[in-house]
Each structure stands twice: as structure tokens, then as C-alpha cells.
């Protein structure tokens, strides 16, 4: 059992949890993830390691409530426990001194981009960050991102904070200004990552994205997480989750993420009904 040491609401639908998992905390690196299962009837859900504390032995996850499992996870409180917590999984992000790196986080993707931005900063890169959300209330990690960035750009869909628009608008400006950029790292909704990839492709800038296909085991055993990268099929849980954005078949990823739409709906309704019945 893994105890929840701290829980915070970052917005109405985005929650942060710090969980006691000393052995994982010892090993975790930027870009890796965990798979957790709340209880015996639960599904295995992947969550990026948004932070780790090797001294206190904790792993931080930041998640958005989107369906049954994340909704149920959000009902847990400090002091409660999660049944299973497996990690660290996946390859760590390729951190080295590239020169100037642009880190882009959209929506809940700001959480996983933070440890990467921090590591890139620590590796000597000049980090420019762009974070975006629907509105000011949905934005989080502003100070954290600011502390590791040379410059932090903020955008919101409705302009309630920072510039109104999309993260790609800022990226576009940066690219057009002729600024020398050596690396782009983008994490967020698939359409956002696809748009970033399309933008940087023409400039030939190395671009990484972190992919989030549906997973089961996270150990390379099921192949459910396969994504098309270039000519080959890769297992995101062991070969990734970071991939060269210019090689990724994003359309296929979008389709595959929708595989269980109907069941996800049913699962949620079933849970709400059970909860009402008490």
C-alpha cells in the first residue's frame, strides 16, 4: 500500500498528490512514469512522475479528472492509500546540454514538462518555457516553471492570463523571430503535440513529445501501447514515452486513444450509480 502524504487542488479538475514510494523515488528520473491501481477492482492507470523527492521518499503525480478512475482517485484524501504503484517506468528523457531549449506544456501536460525543464536547466540549457491552459484557473506551476526558465510565456484560451491564444502561437513567433533554437520538448493533448511537430519540422529542429497511449502493464508485455514511429511500431511503455515528434503518427494515436470511449462512459455511469446507492 502506498500512502498519500499530500493532496492539493491545482484547479477544479487538476489534482496533485504526493505519494510515499521511497524505492521509486530513489530511482525516478525526468520523463518516467508510474502505473497505479487504486484498489482490487481498479484498472492500471499510467501517470507521469511530476516530481520526486529522494530524501523524503515521495513521488508527485498531477492528474486531470477525465473519467472513472481519475474521478475516484480524486476522492482519496491525505492519509489514504493506493493499492499498487509501479515504477519508475519508461526511458528517462534524453537530458544533455543542447543549447537553447523550448519546453511547452499544455493543460495537465505542464506537470510532466516541469521536471524535464528543470533537468534541462540543470544541464546548462537556456530554457524558454511556454505553458497554456483554458483559463487562468486551470493554470498551475507558474512559479515552478518560472524558476527554471530564462523566460516563461503564458497563454490562455480566453486571455484571462497571459496572452490569449495557443502555445503554438508563441512558438511560431519565436521561430519566425529567427531565434536559434536547438531543442523543443512538448507535452500536452495530442493535437497540440501534433501542431508543435508540424511547426518545427520545417525548421529542422529536434523535437521530442511524450506520448500517452492506452496502457495496461507498462512493462512491455501486452503491446497495447504500440505507436507508429517512422516505419516501425514501438511500445511506448518501454521504448518511450518520449519520441521524435517528426516521426510519430499522431492521427493513429488519436484513434487508438478512443478505443474504449463507450466503455469509459459505461464505467463512469456504473460507478455513479453504485455511489448513489451507497
Amino acid at each position, binding site marked *: 500500500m502506498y500512502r498519500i502524504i499530500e493532496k492539493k487542488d491545482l484547479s477544479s479538475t487538476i489534482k496533485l498528490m504526493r505519494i510515499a514510494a521511497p524505492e521509486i523515488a530513489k530511482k525516478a528520473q525526468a520523463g518516467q512514469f508510474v502505473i497505479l491501481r487504486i484498489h482490487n477492482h481498479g484498472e492500471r492507470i499510467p501517470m507521469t512522475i511530476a516530481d520526486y523527492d529522494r530524501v523524503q521518499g515521495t513521488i508527485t503525480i498531477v492528474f486531470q479528472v477525465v473519467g472513472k478512475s481519475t474521478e475516484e482517485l480524486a476522492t482519496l484524501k491525505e492519509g489514504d492509500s493506493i493499492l499498487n504503484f509501479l515504477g519508475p517506468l519508461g526511458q528517462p528523457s534524453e537530458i544533455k546540454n543542447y543549447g537553447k531549449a523550448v519546453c511547452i506544456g499544455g493543460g495537465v501536460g505542464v506537470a510532466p514538462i516541469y521536471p524535464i525543464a528543470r533537468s534541462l536547466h540543470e544541464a546548462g540549457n537556456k530554457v524558454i518555457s511556454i505553458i497554456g491552459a483554458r483559463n487562468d484557473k486551470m493554470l498551475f506551476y507558474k512559479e515552478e516553471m518560472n524558476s527554471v526558465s530564462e523566460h516563461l510565456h503564458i497563454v490562455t484560451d480566453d486571455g484571462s492570463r497571459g496572452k490569449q491564444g495557443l502555445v503554438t502561437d508563441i512558438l511560431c513567433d519565436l521561430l519566425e523571430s529567427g531565434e536559434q533554437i536547438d531543442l523543443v520538448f512538448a507535452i500536452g493533448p495530442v493535437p497540440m503535440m501534433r501542431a508543435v511537430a508540424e511547426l518545427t519540422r520545417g525548421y529542422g529542429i529536434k523535437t521530442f513529445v511524450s506520448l500517452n497511449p492506452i496502457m*495496461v502493464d507498462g*512493462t512491455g*508485455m501486452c503491446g497495447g501501447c*504500440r505507436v507508429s514511429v517512422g516505419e516501425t511500431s514501438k511500445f511506448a511503455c518501454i521504448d518511450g514515452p518520449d519520441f521524435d515528434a517528426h516521426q510519430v503518427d499522431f492521427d493513429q494515436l488519436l484513434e487508438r486513444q478512443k*478505443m474504449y470511449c463507450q*466503455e469509459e462512459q459505461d464505467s463512469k455511469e456504473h460507478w455513479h450509480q453504485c455511489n448513489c446507492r451507497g
Partner: protein
Amino acid sequence: MTTKKTRKKTREVMQTQQPKVRVHNFDEVALGYTEEQAVAEAERCLNCKKKPCSNGCPVGVDIPGFIELIREKDFLGAAKKIKESNNLPAICGRVCPQEEQCEKNCILGKKGEPLAIGRLERFVADRERECGVEMPPLPEPQDKKVAVVGSGPAGLTVAADLAKLGYGVTMFEALHDPGGVLIYGIPQFRLPKEIVKGEIDYIQGLGVDLKVDSLIGRIQSVDELLADGYDAIFIGTGAGLPNFMDIPGENLNGVYSANEFLTRTNLMKAYQFPEYDTPIKVGKRTAVIGGGNVAMDSARCALRLGAKEVYIIYRRSEKEMPARAEEIEHAVEEGVKLKLLCAPTRIIGEDGWVKALECINFELGEADESGRRRPVPIKGSEFIMEMDTVVMAIGNSPNPLISQTTPDLKTGWRGVLVADPETGLTTKPGVYAGGDIVTGAATVISAMGAGKKAAAAIDRYLKGDS
């Protein structure tokens, strides 16, 4: 003893759930022998001096010995006799390919049906479980520690044998439940999970410390385990990496590896969705590619999950199918259709989903190195079958995580670990391996056999005499 005249040529028939009923549930299909049946079947045994059956058994169970005890109705004694060489009889009695092993060698098979050794093994193991398994006296604890990586039949065997010798054993398992393929792969209706759980409880009762959610190679490497004070390590991580065919359309929605299909169904209990959270999709028509146990299990799960038509698509002919005879028979009884001498060439999609499967027919050509006639595609024989789900059951390779993170472990064909077949010793001192990670996908009993040898070798190594 019965006289030769009255000796039956045919074996006692084992009751099964009726096919029409069982395709709607996940309960065990084969119901086992009654006491009377077991004794009657045991009466058929000739008690051959040379024990040809035992010679066919990969771990050399004293078969005539335990059968004799059944005749004497000493069922617990019979169970003990088997356990001298096989820790997991309730499992082996259900899943071993007996017709290829002990029963193949049985003298009775020359004139009639061979003795039903597997069913008798199952009977005594079940009887022992019902009576409550006796724990062996625990030995003096030794100060040496062993790490066992993977909790499939190989790892379970090593852990049990070393714990019985008093070693401190810690077993690391990546998944949330131990048992390996026995838990995530082989379905409930063939091997009830309660039986596997019983074996694991027994092993924990011996003092083995089980750590689930522990992926070695990520949370700790093999070298770190050694540095952490483990005196020896056994790697039994199996062959869990699913192979795909590399044909167009394999990443469409509705295409599963058998591992994913079975893991969702068995480990995650998708057949009880939404009581359990993990979903699965089957649709009306399912094609399973392959001819082994994995294919049969997938096909039979698909039926139980509600598919109306299920096809097994296999390149060779029925007699070459590697699946256990009983599984093929059960699958066909349940309505699974065999499409033989046939293989898919591409999967046709619509809106991201599987719509149909294009296959090509084969004919049998010249014999290959294995003596089997090689299937050759018939030009222009392609045809299309509408499908909702396609399950790839064309084999698994070893998971490369351990070898990738342990530089001095040598690997061979398809990434199997190189290990001495007699001791399991790898190319790294103190590190042993066995089961599917060494042989590639094989059988439960061969994994256990490798575990037995490795446990003995580890004991010798830790005592300093090898």
C-alpha cells in the same frame, strides 16, 4: 488387482461442463475425477518396472509409485510422492501436455488409451488441497539471501526449493499479482486462479518474501541486487514480449496481442466489467491467429466474452497444432472454427477500426528441418473475411529489460539468456536463469524443471562446493 481380462482399454471419462453452458461462463470446464473414478483408472496401471511414463516426464515424477498409492486409496501419500519432484501438481495436472510426455510413453497406449496420468495427478492434488496442505517443518534459517526475479512457475519453484533449505528468499514480481502466465495468461476456466493463489500462499508460508510492483531493471538492476547483499539471483522473467506479424493494419483498433487480450480478461477481469474497471472489446466476429495454447485460450475467451463467431487461423494443418489435444477438442466443441492452412496478409480498416482480414491459403510442400511439411502460400488464393477483432497469438519473445540493464549477461537467439542447461548458471557469476527466458516460450513443467535444477545449483554454489 484386476486381472488382464477385465482391464479396461479406455480411460475413465472426466466430466466436463456442457459446451452450450460453459461458453457463457468462466468456470472451470473439466470437473475432475470422483474418488471411484480415480481408483478405477489407477487399476488400469500395469506398474511397469521400467517406468516408461516417468521417463517421459520432464521432472521425472515417480508415476507408477503415486498411482499405486491411489489404488491403495492413500491419496495424501500419492500427493506427497508427486511433490517429491513436482511442487505444483494441481497446476500441472491441468495444463501439462501429457499426451506429448508421460502418457505418450504409456504401454497401455499401444493397445488402447494410455493411462490418464494428468487427471490422476490433478485428482490427488485437489484432494490434498481440500484436506488442507501440510506445511513441511521449516529448517534452520541460513544467513545467505537469494533474490528471485519473476513469479512464474520457474521462479515459484526456485523460491520454494530454496526456502525449504532455509535460505532467505525474496521474490520480485513486476505485476500486481504473482504467478506469471498462470495468472495473467491461462484463463480461469482452464486453471482456476484460486489454485494458483493456493500455491503462492504455500510458498509464502515457507517464508518467501514476495514483492509485487517491482520491475527489476527499473526499480533495481541485477547488479544493484547483488550489491544490496543478495548472494545469488535467479532470473525467471519468462517470454512475455508479444510478437506481431508486421502486416499492414496491425495498429488498427480491434487488433490485440494475445497477451493483451488475455491479460485484460484474466488478470484484470474484464469479463466482469464494469464491476472491474478494465474494459475489453470483442464484437461479433473474432479471428485468432496461431495454433498454440495461447491461441486456443484467446479463442475460448472471445466466445465467453460474447463473440458470435470465432476463428482460429493457422498456417499448418491440425495435426501440427502445438496446442494440447484437449484444448483443441474443447475449443471445437464450444464452436470455435478452425481455418487451417491459411494466414493473414493484411488487416483492412475503416475509420481506424478493424473491418476485415485478408488471408491467403497454403498447401503443404517439402518437409523442413523439423520434418514437418512446410506450408507454402498458394498464389492468388487471397480471400477476405469480415472481422471485428483480431488477436495475434503467434508467439512471445523474452522481455529484453534485464539483459539490456545487465551488461555481462550474454543473450542468444531472440534475446534468450544464455544459461547452462544443467545448472541454469548464466554468464554472470552468482546469477542463474531458467524457464521461458532461457528456452523461449515452452511449458509450465519445463520451466519448473529448470527451476529445480537451478535451485539445487544455487544451493551448491552458496555452500561453496561448485
